[in-house]
């Protein structure tokens, strides 16, 4: 008893605060016209009567005919079809489902499916009803009987949807495959389904990585088996390494040193700017970032990015290489003193052996 009281108190507490804070109704005093000035009394009555009728279970005509059909011992075949067709015409999902369920209870299954299959909308409604109620076996039967073999894939996935435990998932999907595999005719679909079976340990590339940081082969093998997209793969690696701040490994993986021109390149399918953007989100130290900036071949873009990311040294170096003195002086304003970058500028400006353009 005591625990129940506590329970009550707990929720009551919630409700009190709930009442006070959450239920702040939008200004009550704003323009609320007296109701009769907006619509006449008769209209209001009509509208309110509507609610009353729902409460008193006044059966509308379609329901009457449905009830009649269900209570009569044997309803005429044509009547049933007529009922179904007129229900579909009304475009009211509720009515359609009631009629379909009624038909299902009074017809043999194959005849029921045959009639449904002639009416696409009916199939849709019934399928939706089955999906909401989780009756996947019947859904599979429905699709098979009505020839929607492509939708088998859907059922396959739906079965596995809510299951979190991997073993249960695997078992369920395997069972499904065994029963329905012959029906899946498209080869592409088949390969997709098989892939899924292999992939069940999950798409968690990074988890693999974390487990064995240095075993590249395992990862590469995984990637090849499942035909993982290059871009996505490299992006994930970038993210993982950057978030773990493994800068040396990052360099080893992505930068390809070029001894001839001393300008390194990035060995990745990604656009270098996107790479730099992705890296910058993890807030790496400036010199790491500058390494990658140097790999961008378009110097304008790299300059722009460097300025955006506040990589001052890079910009300064660039201006020094271009022998652009005015720009250096202009840039001095952005750099706070006394920092390394400031001294860099000062030294460059004061050194006499540089031939400036301007």
């Amino acid at each position, binding site marked *: 008893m005591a625990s129940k009281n506590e*329970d*009550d108190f707990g929720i009551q507490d*919630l*409700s009190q605060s*709930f009442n006070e804070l*959450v239920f*702040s*109704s*939008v200004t*009550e005093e704003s323009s609320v016209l007296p109701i009769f000035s907006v*619509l*006449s009394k008769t*209209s209001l009555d*009509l*509208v*309110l009567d*509507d*609610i009353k009728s*729902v*409460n008193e279970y006044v059966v509308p005509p379609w329901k009457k005919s449905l009830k009649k059909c269900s209570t009569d011992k044997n309803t005429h075949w044509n009547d049933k079809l007529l009922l179904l067709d007129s229900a579909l015409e009304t*475009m*009211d*999902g*509720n009515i359609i489902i009631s009629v379909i*369920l009624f038909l299902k209870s009074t017809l043999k299954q194959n005849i029921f499916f045959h009639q449904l*299959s*002639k009416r696409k909308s009916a199939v*849709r*409604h019934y*399928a*939706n*009803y089955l*999906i909401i109620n989780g009756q996947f076996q019947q859904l599979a039967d429905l699709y098979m009987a009505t020839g929607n*073999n*492509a939708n088998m*894939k*859907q059922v*396959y*996935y739906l079965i*596995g*949807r809510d299951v979190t435990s991997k073993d249960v998932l695997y078992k369920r999907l395997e069972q499904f495959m065994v029963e329905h595999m012959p029906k899946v005719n*498209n080869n*592409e679909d088949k390969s997709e389904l098989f892939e*899924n079976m292999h*992939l069940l340990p999950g*798409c968690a590339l*990074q988890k693999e990585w974390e487990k064995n940081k240095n075993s590249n082969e395992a990862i590469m093998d995984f990637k090849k088996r*499942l035909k993982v*997209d290059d*871009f*996505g793969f490299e*992006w994930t690696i970038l*993210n993982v390494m950057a*978030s773990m701040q493994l800068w040396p490994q990052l360099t080893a993986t992505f930068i390809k040193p070029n001894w001839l021109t001393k300008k390194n390149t990035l060995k990745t399918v*990604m656009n270098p700017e*996107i790479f730099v*953007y*992705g890296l910058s*989100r*993890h807030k790496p130290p400036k010199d790491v970032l500058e390494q990658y900036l140097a790999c961008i071949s378009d110097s304008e873009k790299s300059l722009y990015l460097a300025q955006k990311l506040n990589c001052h040294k890079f910009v300064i170096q660039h201006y020094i290489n271009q022998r652009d003195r005015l720009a250096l002086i202009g840039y001095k304003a952005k750099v706070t003193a006394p920092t390394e970058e400031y001294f860099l500028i000062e030294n460059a400006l004061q050194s006499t052996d540089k031939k400036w353009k301007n």
Partner: protein
Amino acid sequence: MKEISKAQLSKIFCVNPNTKNLIIESALIRPLERVCGVKWLKGYGVDKIYKLEGALPNFGANAIFYMIFSDAKVFKQVVNQVRSQIDLENPPKNKFHVIVVPRHLTDFENELEQLGLLYTAITLHSFQWMPFHLDTGILSLEIPSLFNSLFVYQDTKFVPVLSKILWQLCFVIGKPRFIIGLGQFSNALLNQYDQLCEDRGETDKLDSDFGALLVIDRNIDYPSVLLTPGTYTALLSEVYSVNAGVCENKEESIDKLDQKYNPLIDKQVLTFNLDSIQDSIYADIKNRYFTEVTSVLSNLTKQLKSEKLQSKEMALDEIKHYVQTQLQATKQKKKFITNHLLAAESIINILGHRFENQKQVERNIVKDSDKATNLNYLDELLATENDKHITLRLFCLLAITQTLTESEIRSFWHKYLHQFGFSYGFAFTNLINMGFVPEPAQTSSSSSLNLQNKIKIPKFTSSNFYVNAKNLKQIPSDPDKVNVKYPTCASYPYGGSYIPLITQISGMILNSTPIDDIKSKLETFGTFSMRNDRGYPLQSRSVLIYVVGGITYAEIAACNLLETLTGARIYILSDKLVTGNDLMKGILDYPK
């Protein structure tokens, strides 16, 4: 209209005149706030209000009213709660009531019947409030899963709710004389409306407040939803969740990295109403293009600062006067500005880095150029953003405009499933059902059933989109020239790339384009019907647009511009205010 909703709700509560307790699903709280307040509920005998949770405490003799959305899982939860409380052989009468919004379904009744509870222990009620007046010219029904059930699964269970709302609305506003219906479900709605008028009676108002009514399906114009908008409110709804006109984000997210080790960007915590009557600043910036909004806000902050400085130098009398008259207003203004600034900051943080690129790609798509670049961008987006809704959205946009070959679709889908998990595999069928992806060719042996499947006409083909858009002049020839600061073209919400369909149709109606012209242009979009009861050219320059499936703030902004340009009034009614991401959620997450 609030009064009508209250009256309807009161009828339900009066079924049991004793004291009651009300248990509400949490998603219903905000919309219910718009209908009535706590005091009103207490006036009808509601003693305590609780949120729907796992366990149900014992309430004693009080009647219990549950209020839930039409969701099978939640309903089952409620039923289980009730069953745990009662004895089947001897159920208490008139104690448990379940109010289902918007409408209780046959499966609910069946469920209760099978459990022996129907009519005995649990009474089912349907309740749908009248549309909420969220902001000037925006009426919304706030029904959560209408788009999902109607368009993703083609399940028409909620269409009668919509037609009934229209019927009830016509009591208030009169029946417009000129009605256009465009789309399969819109026409079904109008038919049901006629049926209701026949069965239950029509309004006795002679003249309608509105010159024209346009009922249109969401699937007639998907690009308006799928394109990334640029106006302030639209971006707000993209970044935050806007529910019943309230923008809120309650907690700060604690994860720094998402599943794929991408760093997560924090959204600022805030809650405020999107109400242009109370919030004058919001009224100013709501339809502005985002680049202008930041400058407006900074101007306002400067103004406030200068006001503050001024007030420091005032004499005593002046201070008294100031406190009496202006202080409250200034305080409120400051609060509004702070909220908007926080929101703007979040928008910039979250969307800023890809906004330009995205805009460019979308512009290309609408112009039908650079398909390869667009596809590349799609692939990049898939990996870099790691957001299943945004990527799917761009894919759908490409699919209905520039159309993708089967191999392109397949490779994208393959990567998508790799990125987000195979548990979304079923969504592919949803995409086929909605017409984004063409049905794969049946290769099995022919049978009459297969032929029937083939005869289904695809809803969208690329030639259709570009041809139709050109017909209705939806694509401006030079998007760069569209002025977003002082806009004169209704394509400005999308940065000049695209004019929403409803704006163009309203424009045609208001400009008194000949009826045959309208008819010929709109027939290609889908099922089209028109009723003209000597209502054309319009007698009163006002249009009510009823969009079945959801409306975006960007389209509302475009219509607002049309209002100012033509001096007419355009009201928009829809079941919910959506963004492209909401539509994608429907494809991926439904049914729950």
